[in-house]
């Protein structure tokens, strides 16, 4: 296809797609009671309006994000006449959409520079998964901030794979400040960045020299930069907004009950135990399988074989084993797919890939059907419907995860040649 010969055309098309979505969204908002704009975007813009008035963004209920987000969206709070106010209102969406395109561009750069992909092949994969994916364009133009996470993760990878430890650390600190989960990437990157990748060769093989050998300049720079940016950002926000900042951005996620139905295999159990009906406190240990895999086992076994596949497996595991899971979480691993898919057994063996896709979609469909029965028909579908659907979806995800792990062990998504 000729269009993939030219990066300019691919990115123009991606931008045009988002522009169309933006304009259409504005039209739908103005002409239908079913709004295109995401409810979360109303939360962000309300918060931005409070900030513009010199108040705390946490004055808005359910604003559970860093104040940075409200500050970034300050232009949406600018008052103006009708055409002007429509434009300012869309500022945040445009920003998220732009971040999307930038994230895609970074991934293409990495595939070409570090993975030796021909430009055309890189564009093909990134377009299919991300740039031209209508779901991605839809989510960011509806005003969901997940698009920002995409660009942060892509930038983190870019800085890492092009060996810029300080920049990578700074980006990681920012990403964790934004949304806690990217801290999992820190572990993989640290383990991956050994002396060999720094270009020096380890001397000696004693335990002490191995331990000392672990401390490489890059690892130190990366860690210090990450901690510095994370601490600095939180300190600034804490000084600005005090306890509400800490509560809404971080502690809320530790104390929330999460009794409402969602894709997580834990959701029925959490409802049961929140209502005081559980005999054991098994869910209190839910973080153990999740964190053991994500923070210890996956990075340790896979990170040096394939960093991007490890990060994908980590994200996949984090989402699959999490106590809450909604569809926006699925976006988290989408940005990492272009690195993994080209050499994965899901593509090499179409039967396997298609089976995985069908099972995953079937898991979703089963759950959504039960969810619809509950939410809209008022049927009591918690047990066995939602309960079993949640466990089945979990099983499918775990099976796919097993495939990713095996591929990662085989070096899928690994850099073939070291960067000059």
């Amino acid at each position, binding site marked *: 296809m000729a269009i993939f010969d030219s990066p300019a055309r691919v990115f123009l098309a991606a931008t045009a797609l988002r522009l169309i979505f933006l304009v259409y969204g504005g039209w739908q908002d*103005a*002409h239908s*009671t079913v709004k295109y704009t995401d409810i979360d975007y109303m*939360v962000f813009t309300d918060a931005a309006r409070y900030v513009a008035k010199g108040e705390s963004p946490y004055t808005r*209920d*359910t604003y559970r994000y860093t104040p940075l987000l409200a500050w970034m969206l300050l232009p949406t709070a600018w008052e103006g006449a009708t055409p002007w106010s429509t434009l300012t209102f869309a500022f945040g969406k445009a920003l998220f959409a732009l971040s999307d395109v930038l994230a895609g561009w970074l991934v293409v750069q990495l595939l070409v520079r570090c993975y030796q992909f021909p430009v055309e092949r890189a564009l093909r994969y990134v377009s299919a998964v991300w740039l031209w994916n209508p779901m991605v364009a839809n989510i960011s133009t509806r005003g969901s901030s997940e698009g920002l996470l995409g660009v942060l993760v892509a930038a983190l990878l870019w800085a890492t794979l092009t060996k810029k430890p300080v920049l990578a650390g700074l980006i990681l600190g920012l990403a964790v400040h934004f949304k806690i989960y990217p801290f999992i990437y820190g572990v993989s990157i640290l383990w991956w960045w*050994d002396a*060999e*990748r720094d270009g020096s060769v380890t001397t000696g093989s004693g335990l002490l020299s191995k331990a000392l050998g672990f401390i490489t300049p890059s690892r130190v720079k990366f860690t210090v930069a990450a901690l510095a940016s994370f601490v600095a950002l939180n300190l600034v926000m804490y000084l600005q907004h005090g306890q509400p900042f800490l509560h809404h951005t971080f502690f809320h996620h530790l104390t*929330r009950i999460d*009794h409402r139905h969602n894709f997580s*295999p*834990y959701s*029925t*159990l959490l*409802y*049961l135990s*929140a*209502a*005081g*009906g*559980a*005999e*054991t406190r*098994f*869910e209190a240990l*839910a973080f153990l*399988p999740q964190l053991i*895999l994500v923070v210890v*086992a*996956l990075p340790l*076994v*896979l990170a*040096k*074989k394939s960093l991007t596949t490890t990060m994908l497996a980590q994200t996949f*595991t984090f989402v699959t*084993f999490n106590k809450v899971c909604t569809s926006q979480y699925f976006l988290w691993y989408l940005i990492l797919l272009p690195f993994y898919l080209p050499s994965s057994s899901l593509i090499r063996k179409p039967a396997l890939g298609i089976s995985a896709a069908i099972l995953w979609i079937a898991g979703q469909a089963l759950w959504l059907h039960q969810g619809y029965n*509950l*939410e*809209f028909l*008022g049927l*009591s*579908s*918690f*047990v*066995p419907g939602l*309960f079993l659907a949640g*466990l089945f979806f*979990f*099983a499918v995800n*775990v*099976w796919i*995860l*097993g495939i990713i*792990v*095996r591929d*990662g*062990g*085989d*070096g899928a998504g690994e850099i073939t040649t070291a960067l000059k």
Partner: protein
Amino acid sequence: MKRRITFIQSVNASFDPEQAVLTTSSLSVRDIDAAREDRITVGLDELPEELRAVLEQSHELHLRWASERSFDAVVPFSSRVSPGLHVHYTPLGSESSSEALCTLLRTIVAPSKDAQYKNCSKQEDAFITPPLLSTRFGSSAALQYYTRLPSIQPLVKYIHNTVCDQSRTGGRECHTRADALLSADSVDIDYDSTSHALTVSGLWASSPTGGWTDKFQRPASADDQVEFGLLGAEAGLEPEEIKMGGLLAVVGEDEKLKPTMFSFPSRHQSLTEPSSYTVSFASPTGLHPTMSISMPRSSLKRPTAPDDTTCGLHTYLTLPSVIFGDQYQLATTDPLFLESHNLLALQALAGEMDLEAPDWVVQRWGSNWLFELATPPELEETANTPDSSNWTATIPLHLRYLPPSETGHRTAYIPWPVVFWACTSEDSTKMSVNPFDRTHLGWDSLFGPRTLFYQLQPTGDRLVEEIDVPVLRLEGEEGYFQGKYIELGTCAVISLGFIWVLWRLARVAWSSGVGSKPVETAHDKKE
């Protein structure tokens, strides 16, 4: 103690002088077809110690109870509240917070085990703060509470056990009068620290079969008084006035019934044309029920209020904690949303606004919402066919999660909201000269003191909607649906998943270590 009995006869009701006979010691009525209000005012020192303790901590305390039965509200008793018990309370000192009121409430509500009753140990727990739109009028209490209360049996029992025991008028009459409240359509209890008196009013909107037959004795003590009135009401000369005429007497003082005629401004007015509404939830309600308020279009004529007033159709919702509105969704100014629901604006809201919490975590009783409703565009008088279709306003709401149950469902009881016209005027009419004035209804304080209210009539067998809330189904020892299966099942599946991923990782580590050089050939034959 002061007692006031008022019978209100409709204009076309028959009356024969023989039906009300006054002697020096008593007044007897026979077969009177009328609405009736009994009001008893008791001094603080005449009350039992337990009740006095609560009142002495109160700056003001107003209880409003309305039956779940539908009833016709007659002038001058035309104001309404949603069925259930409403408590409006202002403590005397801001720091005083005792458990006495909560204990009293629990006694007079006597909730059953299954009732979604929001208990309080201190009033800050379960009470909400009404919106302070009109503090300058001082017409709103500081704290407010509501609970469903289909019958006031426990309140009557409380009166039997405490007030009657101490009553100087003797036990039997006190018991009879308390029992009479059981058939009342609405009951008001008022106390404020300036008057130091407790007033209990019962309203019966219509007479029992065969009419009222009763005998009112002259009080035994000279401090006590029994006032009697047999009246009819009609519109006054001014639009804000009510004119009443009939017979009055003070039992034991007056020798004969005195004919009388008087008029006064009244904030609660009646609509000249019959007007009604019904409330329903579209089925299936799911977790996001939508409340529909339907009115025949013919009901929606602007009331005959003074010309200089601005009138708006309003509804005031009393939502128990299980059901709630999203304030951000409902406070929108988006004309598309408002038009599609026939709403004009959300005017006021108060109470529990949490969008995420399950019901068992919420401590406060719920929330109140005042909406201004849209009215159909004025039809040309020349329109040849009268439009008989209904005009419906809808309010999208959401349900909270309730605790698990054996059936997988629980019932939520949603009282019908009140629907009324509010006409505000700049005029300086003083409404409080009205001997039948009624305030502290929750919604009245959201308007200025000169506002005239015209209630629409709720028509239905029962003014409470029941919603089936789906919950987690948990059976006892015998059933399939047990908590331990959920616990074990979740635990087993997560553990298996965890072990599977670890096993996959172990195989990778086994064949190629944890280093950076993957062994190319290791897995080919296994795939």
